């Protein structure tokens, strides 16, 4: 295995998440005519939290703190498995369904941790988290399966491998699947229009309210996990779009690598724009939004079937 590749990947994994999170905040602030925090603010936050002491609910069990660790560990492992940048070194076992269920593990412990404190707010949000994940999971699965059908394999590495150009017929599958994944990512990451990460009312939040009892290093772990998750989900979307491009006009590896990273920032900017112009949906309307993600997944599958069949 190439050590250089690994080093590069590790560096990207260290840097990009923080920058992505920072980018969203910064651009959003700019769009709202605010100066906004520095680009590295997420890093500062984490460092600050890392140094702080920790307060834990007296009702909590070991699950509460264990979950934070498991959560980040899972996210990091997923980041290592998932080809969210074009130059990620290959690993065996990078399977679609493993990816889905690893994410589910993180969610499982997240929900348990939220319930552990007995706080009604976090229980509310964890219930919503479960609902959202239930709705969004098939969308992600179907989008990825559509891609896998093209590759005849469920290994993410081989699905997202850049080989010979597949021709323009492959592009629609990638684009539609990419759209599906992007919409799903918004839900998965509790971004607008499903959830507003910056609201101040615990009752309306999903992700932030789940962390309401976390503090100090515990919260820092959660923040890091969130940024990493944000990054690799966006990265995966970007890869889809890049593949669509690659299918029509094959480009060099270096360019692809640059585009992969740039694409993530681009999506971050897009998110910021989206969050500026849209409002959070009423909770009961969320399924309608997620239905679009699922539809994208279904379209992708249909496109893949017909491409394979015809």
């Amino acid at each position, binding site marked *: 295995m190439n050590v250089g590749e690994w080093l590069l990947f590790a560096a990207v994994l260290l840097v990009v998440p923080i920058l992505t999170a920072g980018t969203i905040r910064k651009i959003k602030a700019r769009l709202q005519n605010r100066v906004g925090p520095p680009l590295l603010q997420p890093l500062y936050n984490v460092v600050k939290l890392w140094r702080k002491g920790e307060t*834990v609910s007296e009702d909590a069990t070991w699950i509460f703190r264990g979950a934070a*660790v498991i959560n980040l*560990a899972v996210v990091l492992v997923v980041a290592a498995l998932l080809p969210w940048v074009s130059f990620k070194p290959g690993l*065996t*076992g990078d399977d679609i369904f493993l990816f889905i269920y690893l994410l589910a593990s993180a969610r499982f412990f997240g929900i348990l941790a939220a319930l552990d404190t007995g706080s009604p707010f976090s229980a509310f949000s964890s219930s919503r988290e479960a609902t959202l994940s239930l709705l969004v999971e098939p969308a992600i699965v179907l989008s990825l399966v559509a891609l896998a059908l093209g590759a005849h394999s469920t290994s993410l590495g081989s699905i997202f491998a850049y080989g010979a150009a597949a021709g323009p017929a492959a592009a629609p599958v990638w684009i539609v699947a990419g759209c599906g994944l992007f919409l799903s990512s918004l839900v998965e990451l509790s971004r607008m229009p499903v959830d507003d990460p910056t609201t101040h009312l615990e009752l309306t939040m999903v992700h932030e309210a789940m962390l309401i009892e976390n503090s100090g290093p515990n919260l820092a772990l959660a923040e890091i996990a969130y940024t990493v998750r944000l990054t690799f989900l966006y990265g995966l979307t970007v890869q889809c779009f890049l593949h669509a491009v690659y299918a029509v006009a094959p480009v060099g590896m270096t360019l692809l690598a640059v585009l992969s990273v740039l694409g993530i920032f681009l999506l971050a900017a897009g998110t910021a724009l989206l969050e500026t112009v849209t409002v959070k949906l009423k909770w009961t309307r969320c399924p309608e939004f997620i239905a679009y993600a699922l539809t994208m997944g279904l379209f992708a599958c249909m496109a893949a079937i017909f491409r394979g*069949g015809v």
Partner: protein
Amino acid sequence: MLKYRNIIILILVPGLLALLSCFGVAAAFCGWSHVAGWTAPPPVYLGVCPVQMRLDSLAAIFLLLLSLVSFSVSLFSPGYLEHLRGRVSPGFYWLTVYLFIASMAAVVLAANALTFLLFWEVMSLSSAALVAFDMTSTQAQKAALIYLGATRIATALLAAGFLWAHQLFDSWAFAGWNFGGPETLGPSVLIVLGFAVKAGLWPFHIWLPYAHPTAPSPVSALMSGVMIKIALYGILRLFAFQSGASLEIALLILFLGTVSAVWGVLFALVQRDLKRLLAYSSVENVGLIALGIGLYLYGHHCGLESIAAAGAVAALFHSLNHGLFKSLLFLGAGAIDASVHTRDLSHLGGLGRAMPWTLLYFVTGSAAITALPPLNGFASKWLIYQGLFQVAVDSGNLVHVGLAIAVIGILAVVGGLALACFTKAVGIAFLGRARSRAASEARECAPPMVLAQGLLAVLCLCLGMGSPWVGRLLSELVSGQFSQPFVPELPMVNLALALLLVAGCLYVAALARTERSLKKYCSWECGYGRLNARMQATGESFAQPIASLLRPVLQYRMRAEISGRDRRHFPEQVKAEAGMQSLLESRVYGPLIAAVRWLSAHMARLQAGSIHFYLLYLLVAVVSLLVAGVVL
């Protein structure tokens, strides 16, 4: 005198069971590589065929599962029986449990139809006796009756199928049956439906949520962990490892499996009785196993070996897995029951601190059943996904591809629902604050009970980590059927190690530092004053978003009543009520039973007591017989 009796009941009887279980494990390992047969000596004969047993690798797998679960049940039961003291006599309990376990083993080993039915019924009846163990409870009686009814319908269907099969193949031995041909569709459907009733596949699952919760928890573990698998074993035995089946059967099983998976987990989510929840989740898992079997049959029929192998291994593996983690969870529920004397989630909560071991094992079981890697549930579920994916890739039939993808999507929903369901189970039962006095006084259960759960939890983990090896072992078993066994593998050990390593590092880096200086404080209460237990989310409120989303299926109704002079801003009293109802029970089985009752009631009118009417019947009968005689 009494003391000796206690010793016998507390140590010798369970010890004997444990010993026998060990023998079972040994026998299972023998059966892995050798085939052994046994026929009962002459005076014993069942009318049409002798009592015949056969131990082969397929039987060995289920025997292994049975032995493992029985072993932990033997550890768990004495402590659990303490909790039931006065409601069940240990003698009765152990007698029926022995009978139950022995008959399950015999069903697995049965080599011909009558031997199978014989032990099958003994199995059903002994478990029914255990369901109705609490002879004074009407609820137990109702549950046992529903269970007996279901089991009788299953037996009737099986009997019809067996008779028909015998008519076709002129043999009672399973080895002489071959369900490959198109003329076997009739008996195949009957047999599959019979097994479906017993396995609790949709729409025949309604007995499960009655029988499992009512039985003592170790028995629920046996019933859910092993017995319903034995029904699926029947399908495997007759179809999968014999000759395959027609496409219709494969599609039927796939259909039933898919619907069961969704239906089961959906209803599991909205239950408030912990064991009912687990029972419904068994419906889901049985559906998953059925999916595996269906995939196998499909692949076998279409000549697509990779699908068949994935399906077969998935079905066997998931049977084993579900047997382990569902038993674990039922034992956990039993531990709660023994400690708190209730299984109602709305009276539980906060048990995690009092019962840390049970919590750990219950979380392990829940994680396994939610198919979280690297536990065993994921390994088998992944194989099902793989099988479905292979269908989508290889089958070439556009309709089948579409269906396979749809099922993948549905399984994803099932995964999401299972996650919600088991986070609810763990979260509401073990976490937060105690919702009742009994829950706040909970104690960790006795060491053997903890040990029993620990054993199963470790097995879950081992099977998960060792899934490549287990998969290979199982595919060796089915390899007789294929030219090149397909062994899909995932590096679960590496994954587990990576997870463990990263998590360990993170813990050391981030949390270990603050472990000593942790500040304990109450949960965030918006500054209003301390939270009390009733402010917590309940199981109902946790499940409400999903339940209201899927209202039509669940027949979910919610009514909230807010009263007070200014009820908008200062509600004085809030009453919320949520209810749901099984569509099948209210729309299908209810009317069916009502029809039988109606018929019976009208029949009873014939027997009105008047001798004149009776004489008239006599006359009418004679005349109609004469008319029939003249006409025919």
